[in-house]
């Protein structure tokens, strides 16, 4: 159990780092790391049942490797500054992240169900979700919003793991497939936005009003 605790705390740490880092490459690498840790957690929880292990491996393959590689490829093609502009300064976003995590832990207790396999994982999952939304809200660049969304997705996956050993296999695969399709579509859109508007800053996309 101690191993699982450290893994979960490590995941929380990567979540915090993802919110605070300024460079896109660092965030993508942290995302890949988070996926690895998640895969380890799912192996730890699986306890030998084959299809859990299989599911963990498949997810790791899709989210751990495929998506980060795709994102790296995307950033290179876009020739856009790897800098992450946002509304909040680093310290302020960290402060907010801390607040949200505290809220998540306070509220998380109500989420924990009686026979949850990893009770301490639920508040962390909730905080990951809130951090994901925070980063989406506070980041201006389109890519960083996609990353925020992926962090959110990891939080949900951790919630699934800690609540009930993860969803049934094909549902899990469906979710992962959808996540990838969303990212893929977002990638195409970012390309078109770069082509159409010359920038990737969603804050300047405000022509649809009223």
């Amino acid at each position, binding site marked *: 159990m101690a191993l699982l605790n450290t893994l979960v705390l490590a995941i929380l740490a990567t979540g915090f780092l993802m919110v605070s880092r300024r460079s896109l490459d660092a965030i993508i690498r942290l995302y890949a790391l988070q996926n690895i840790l998640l895969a380890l957690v799912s192996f730890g929880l699986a306890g030998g049942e084959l299809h859990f292990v299989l599911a963990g491996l498949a997810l790791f393959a899709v989210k751990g490797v495929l998506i980060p590689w795709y994102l790296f490829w995307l950033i290179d093609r876009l020739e856009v500054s790897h800098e992450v502009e946002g509304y909040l300064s680093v310290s302020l976003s960290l402060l907010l992240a801390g607040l949200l995590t505290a809220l998540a832990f306070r509220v998380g207790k109500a989420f924990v169900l009686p026979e949850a396999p990893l009770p301490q994982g639920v508040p962390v999952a909730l905080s990951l*979700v809130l951090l994901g939304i925070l980063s989406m809200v506070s980041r201006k660049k389109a890519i960083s919003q996609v990353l925020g969304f992926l962090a959110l997705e990891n939080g949900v996956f951790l919630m699934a793991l800690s609540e009930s050993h993860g969803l049934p296999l094909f549902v899990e695969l469906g979710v992962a497939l959808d996540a990838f399709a969303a990212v893929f579509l977002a990638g195409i859109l970012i390309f078109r936005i770069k082509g159409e508007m010359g920038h990737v800053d969603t804050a300047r996309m405000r022509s649809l009003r009223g």
Partner: protein
Amino acid sequence: MLYLLVLLPLVVFLARKEAGRLVRLSVLVPLFSFLLAPFLLGTAAGPFRLDGVGLFYLLLTDLIYALVALFARGYFARAEAWRFYWAGALFLASAHGAYLAHNLGMLWVFVEGSTLASALLVYHKGGARPLEATWKYLMLGSVGIAMGLIGVILVYALVGGATLDWGEVRSLVGEADPEGLKVAFALLLVGFGTKVGLFPLQAWLPDAHAEAPGPASALLSGTLLNVAFYALLRYAAIMQAAGLFAFASSLLLTFGLLTLLFAALFLFGQKEYKRLLAYSSMEHMGLAVFALGLGLPWLALYHTLAHSLAKTLAFLGASGILSLTHAKEVGRVGGLVFHVPALGIPYVLALAALGGLPPFPLFFAEFKAVEAAMRWPGLAGLYLLGLGMAFAGLLSPMAQMGFGRGKPLRGQGLDLWILWLLLGILVILGVFPGVEVFKELEVVLWRK
């Protein structure tokens, strides 16, 4: 066989980019599934099972898709029609999947799939504004759906990880702990509420519907909102089975009323007529959620049916107007009833139908809703106030576009008979509501 029904729409891709064949296939496929589906009622295959409510929405979606595909023939230039039909085929496949999915997880996956497919529909051939609309739609939709996923996970955990099949979950959920269920339903409501366009979460709806090409926005309003509403319906049935409907109805009523009032305020003084119709969709989805909250799922079904038909008619009319006048603002379009009655009259009557006027079904739906809401007179008062405000918003565009000052124009190259067909269906549905059919569907959902 059900797998066939899910994958049937992909047949459209055979026609590749050749417009004529695309149109033929895009009309034949939904009609074929429209005829095939009733025979598959009750059959099950893997995660899919077709029951009454699923069949109802399936038939509605196929009918609307066929009509929209037929109308789109005159709307799109030959070169770029393939984009619409391909995205439409993907969307139809995911909609079929959602209505057939009996497994809650698969339902979520297909709803997410329909979001992505409809994002393609909105994107169509690009441009600054459609791009922005698609991006916002994708982001808001995905975040909302992710919250919905947490809800699905909680439901799955509450049932002890045994199954995600809707039928079993409904029977097992009796012993689940109520607090967890309340939290799960709240998350699901916020999740699918984003897709349905309830008040605080509706920001994507007007942009997506206004920037999508005419027939695409008809599809979005007519069928996409129903997919998310169908999911809400399933989860409301679970809450009812768990005996927690009192809590669920209070949430549904609050969200429904908020959506109605704020949609009415958004409607007022709206400059573009497609944004106006989008807000009217938001308003009617709020009314449907309100009807569900009142504990009358048959009324919610009836309301979504009536709204889908009326909104498809309105949006097809709007796209006809756009193709004739190339003007998006209400002010620059006028005197349609005088200049091109074949398009003007159905469009004005569609706006009247959305305003909840008698010969059309939405009047009957709103009457029954007020009748049921009278248990709490204050609530019924607010409901009537919301309806009045919404109507005030719809009135001036209807007056200006129908009878106001406008340059004479000629209606050509559009299949306007579809509009009159839809109008006929609406009037028949309005005069003979056929409540028994919906009461039977209610039995499938609601466990007495």
